[in-house]
């Protein structure tokens, strides 16, 4: 089964890449853009030998893919 893990900086941590994109959009005259946040998307496939996929993907996301000091993550199951 396939999971999507989205990792991004916590809202209180400055995201200079997102801010730079937002600034350029503003300079280009794109109206109404009040925020841009950059996130990293991981696709993780677990096979049948994984006994507890939900727990495994949470462990992978929290211990490896995201660092809780400055990042948050969301897990979504894409394919059963």
């Amino acid at each position: 089964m396939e999971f999507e893990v989205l990792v991004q900086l916590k809202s209180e941590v400055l995201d200079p890449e997102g801010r730079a994109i937002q600034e350029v959009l503003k300079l280009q005259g794109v109206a109404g853009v009040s925020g841009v946040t950059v996130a990293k998307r991981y696709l993780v496939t677990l096979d049948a030998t994984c006994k507890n996929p939900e727990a495994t993907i949470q462990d992978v996301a929290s211990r490896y893919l995201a660092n809780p000091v400055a990042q948050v993550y969301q897990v979504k199951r894409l394919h059963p």
Partner: protein
Amino acid sequence: MSPQKDAASSLRVGVLQFPGSNCDADCVDALRRHFQIEATLVWHQDTKLPKLDAVIVPGGFSFGDYLRSGALAAHAPVMQDVKRFSEKGGAVLGICNGFQILVESKILPGILLHNLSQTFICKTVHLKDQSGNVLTMPIAHGEGRFYIDKKDLAALTDEGMIAYQYSSLAGEVDEASNPNGSVSNIAGIYSKNKKVLGMMPHPERATDVAMGGSKDGLVVLRNFIERI
């Protein structure tokens, strides 16, 4: 040879090697040339450190800097034993990528994020130590913006864990001298017991005037060796 150097030469220091480490040989050379210490190289897949008095986690691009700088190396087998070693009071020095590995493995607090400029910065900077001395040495990193939340920053300050701050040559710790956007201009921190030091600047690259003028890296290395 000074008596201090004689005493230092019996120290057993291990320098870790990960795929992508590129300052390991510089550290070995600096210890040999200036402190008469024959360091042992330790491979990342080793599950147990040899008998050592101190560990150096060198700079480089371990595991290609994938995921986050230092994040994959933090899970290497050898780091489990480095963690145990530090918990028992062992001395550990992490330089640049080594600092990133130490925070990712939770041996030191905080995290190192992409530089505010989103660019790789390679230049000479000035650092202020806890005694107010200003040292000059190079930085070379893309992810060196030290971040920690306000509560933990206050704890770092209260515990005297801020080892080095980016400053001007005159010792002013200000925004203009902060190369990467680190909170409070932090360039390096100690553990609570001061036995672990992590820093983004490269002391091992400032040990000989032939390397670009400054020998201030020797001050950092000497302080580290004296704390072992």
